[in-house]
């Protein structure tokens, strides 16, 4: 491994605290683009000294060897869209930006169309990748939640969107990965074929690693053909009553309806919720993809119709029509049928419901009770996400205040724990998250800690960003 050829002095006279210029010079000497950081480069409020924009895996490796020699803490950054995800790094000397990374041949995507496989540079924005693939009628069957988010960032945060119900998440479509470890070692696992069980799957390990194990520089994905047709079946369910209507307060349980849809043979690709707690009318939207999508959407419409109660409040109808978070422009209420089949997604589809985000995961049968637990806190929380997969995001107003935020988090955590659910703070400024605790209990944390110790014994890779201070 690379550890045996240090590229910088690591003895007492040059170790931590050596003149910053020496480390800076050594970083520049790698040939990678390196500049002094400015205040805008801070990662979750932590200011680095340098920012590097390497163009290749080899340059990343060279930077990492120098960082090892000078004991620099390194934080990889993609599009910078998810800096409030995870705890702030405990230290940060060097930011390694991935957006200039390219593959060997100089491009950022190598698309093997006939094999339905693409090798991709980690710094490539997800939406750019999708448009490149769309030209050949193919796609990476994931949803990029935040515009500008990169492939590497999506893997590192294990972010996924509505179609997880059908296709799984990034880890399910990732078939190969290239990473650079803290000491500069370049390692690959998997390959370019969709079926492969040779060796450990490092790609899985790096999924959700928040930059704490190393830097992802390349990924290989299995692709799917773009479905010939898509339909969204969208409906508004009656708002929850104060009490008494049912155990959960919902006249029609969104979770119960989603479970019925997921169990139907219409095979929806996604069943999504958009709801403003505590008393808004939940909107539910179902995606059907593939040939005969139109016919199948009618089947779904029938299922939704038989599952829901009549009587939709005007406010919900407006939400449906406008598809936005606020009131429709001019307060105009459009006449939308109770359950609409459209060729376009509702405006809220797949978009994060706010800036300050929690993530709720629960066995599907517990969804309705979890939603009423959210309502029970009384805050105006917007809940959005995958009902059938039971992974929901909850947005709280930014001005909520640390104490109320913490009370909400611990209250909902306590309510969902007996249902087998867990609530994590996905994205929040450090001041808010500190009191609440981002992660909640993680059973496998001792094993994760041992993995971290082996991969990054010096704790130099995004230290502290992940659960357990890893």
């Amino acid at each position, binding site marked *: 491994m690379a550890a045996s050829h240090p590229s910088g002095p690591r003895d007492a006279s040059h170790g*931590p605290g050596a003149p910053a210029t020496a480390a800076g010079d050594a970083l520049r000497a790698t040939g990678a683009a390196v500049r002094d950081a400015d205040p805008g480069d801070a990662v979750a409020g932590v200011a680095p000294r340098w920012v590097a924009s390497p163009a290749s895996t080899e340059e990343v490796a060279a930077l990492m060897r120098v960082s090892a020699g000078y004991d620099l803490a390194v934080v990889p950054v993609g599009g910078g869209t998810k800096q409030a995800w995870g705890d702030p*790094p*405990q*230290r940060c000397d060097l930011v390694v930006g991935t957006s200039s990374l390219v593959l060997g041949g100089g491009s950022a995507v190598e698309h093997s169309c*006939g*094999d*339905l496989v693409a090798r991709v540079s980690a710094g490539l924005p997800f939406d750019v990748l999708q448009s490149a693939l769309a030209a050949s*009628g193919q796609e990476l069957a994931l949803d990029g939640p935040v515009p500008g988010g990169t492939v590497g960032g999506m893997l590192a945060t*294990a972010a996924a969107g509505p179609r997880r119900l059908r296709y*799984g998440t990034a880890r*399910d479509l990732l078939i190969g990965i290239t990473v650079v470890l803290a000491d500069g*070692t370049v*390692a*690959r*696992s998997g*390959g*370019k*074929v*969709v*079926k*492969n*069980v*040779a*060796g*450990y*799957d*490092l790609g*899985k*390990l790096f*999924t*959700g690693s928040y930059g704490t194990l190393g830097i992802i520089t390349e990924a290989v994905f299995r692709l*799917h*053909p773009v479905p*010939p047709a898509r339909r969204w079946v969208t409906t508004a369910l009656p708002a929850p009553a104060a009490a008494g209507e049912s155990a959960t307060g919902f006249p029609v349980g969104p979770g119960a309806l989603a479970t019925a849809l997921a169990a139907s*043979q*219409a*095979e929806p690709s996604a069943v999504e919720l958009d709801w403003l707690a505590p008393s808004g009318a939940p909107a539910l939207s179902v995606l059907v993809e*593939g*040939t*005969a999508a139109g016919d*199948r959407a009618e089947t779904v419409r029938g299922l939704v119709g038989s599952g829901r109660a009549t009587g939709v409040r005007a406010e919900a109808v407006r939400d449906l029509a406008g598809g936005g978070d606020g009131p429709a422009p001019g307060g105009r209420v459009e006449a939308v049928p109770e359950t609409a089949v459209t060729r376009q997604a509702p405006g809220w589809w797949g978009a994060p419901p706010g800036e300050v985000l929690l993530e709720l*995961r629960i066995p*599907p*049968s517990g969804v309705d009770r979890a939603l009423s637990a959210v309502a029970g806190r009384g805050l105006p929380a917007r809940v959005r996400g995958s009902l059938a997969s039971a992974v929901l995001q909850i947005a709280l107003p930014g001005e909520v205040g640390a104490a109320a935020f913490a009370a909400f988090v611990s209250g909902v955590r306590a309510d969902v724990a007996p249902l087998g659910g867990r609530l*994590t703070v996905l994205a929040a400024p450090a001041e808010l998250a500190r009191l609440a605790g981002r*992660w909640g209990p*993680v*059973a*496998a*944390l001792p*094993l*994760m800690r041992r*993995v971290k110790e*082996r*991969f990054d*014994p010096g*704790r130099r890779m995004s230290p502290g960003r*992940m*659960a*357990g201070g890893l």
Partner: protein
Amino acid sequence: MTETLDELARRLAGVLPPGAVITDPVRLRTYECDGLTHHRAVPGIVVLPGSAEQIAAVVKLCGEYGVPFVARGAGTGLSGGALPRTDGVLVVTSKMRRILQIDLANRRAVVEPGVSNLAITEAVREHGYYYAPDPSSQQVCTIGGNVAENSGGAHCLKYGFTVNHVLALEIVTPDGDIVTLDADDPGYDLLGAFVGSEGTLGITTKVTVRLSRTPESVTTLLAAFRDIEQGGQAVSAIIGGGIVPAAIEMMDALAIEAAEAAVACAYPEGAGAVLIVELDGPAAEVAHQFAEVERVCRAVGAFELRTAAGPEERAAIWKGRKSAFAAVGRISPAYIVQDGVVPRTALPEVLAGIDRLSAEHGIRVANVFHAGDGNLHPLVLFDDAEPGAGERAEAVSGRILDLCIEHGGSITGEHGVGVDKSRYMPKMFTDDDLDTMQLVRCAFDPRGLSNPGKVFPTPRLCGEVPGVRRGVHPLVESGRAEQF
């Protein structure tokens, strides 16, 4: 038995129920190999634990004595993964066959590791559900073995492998701790990393699997072609046309001949290749795709098409394919089952390469493969009575893997590395790749007691974690930086 094993056996008897520790040489011998029968070793001790706690106690005792242990399910593995250690303990899960929970509302089931793959589907079929990964060995192989091998099946092109259908695992770590790995946990996807680790990171004691809804409609089609090139063109055209069939399997002339001899599957006379295409899903979609597949097959020259009208006819179409491995026993005294993967577009070239190898070495090769994902199962035929034939067959089999690697593929798509292919790992991976994988091993199993000698070519010592900083960072200590 050595003194250490003697003493260990006595201690094991103290933590396990009566009869769960086997030391009788005759009974030990029944465990000497898995499905790869030319690797054999009589285990030092066999234990038949009945619970996770008992497995944890066994593993702890092994740790105390520094004795290696190997987990074993049904022993159907084809890479020697469950090959025992003569100086170790074989932990057999055959007493752990309970389905603990079927939770249809949440579309999942919780099972013990010794439950057979098919038993899960059988338990939920009447409710309209099934467990999707379907290795051909599904009647016998265990879910614990499936997890260890990340097993696939004929339908994994559309539905994925074991790793895509496991929601949580309870494992006993090589330290003897019982730990749950859950797909919903934040942080490193340890669940994903454990699946496919071939028993080298610990022993699975409980598996939560996803249950899938039985599709509304299933159509199975058999297409006969003059030669394998035509069949390959059909596969490319189907997939290039945007269809992802549930399964798309191909057999060449020799494989058909064998299947015909063994099970009289009555495939079309004169076929140089047959393709089995199965489509499933919503009826409207399947009908549409079926018409397209039929059109494509005819366009590239299929001379006969058969469509299964019901479950019996479907079974008849699959019969030849499913019996193919055993069937070659009818046309050859001995054979090697190979498992390699190539990018689908490289199939024609690689098949031609296999033909050349076969001619050069005078060794017949029957080809059966999961065409949709480029997973080849060449059956290398030889006569073990003929001097030197075994060696030539081995050579051909190995060269086929070289071909896969040269074309950017893999040395195994589903049978695993085990002891059989560990020597090929350095051809597919660099030392740095393998050393990095070894870091994972060292995190889970620093003493290397869990199924040692499998997967990786050269066992390495893990050593202490170098320079782990457990306290505050020196910069913080010296007041030159602030901790956040």
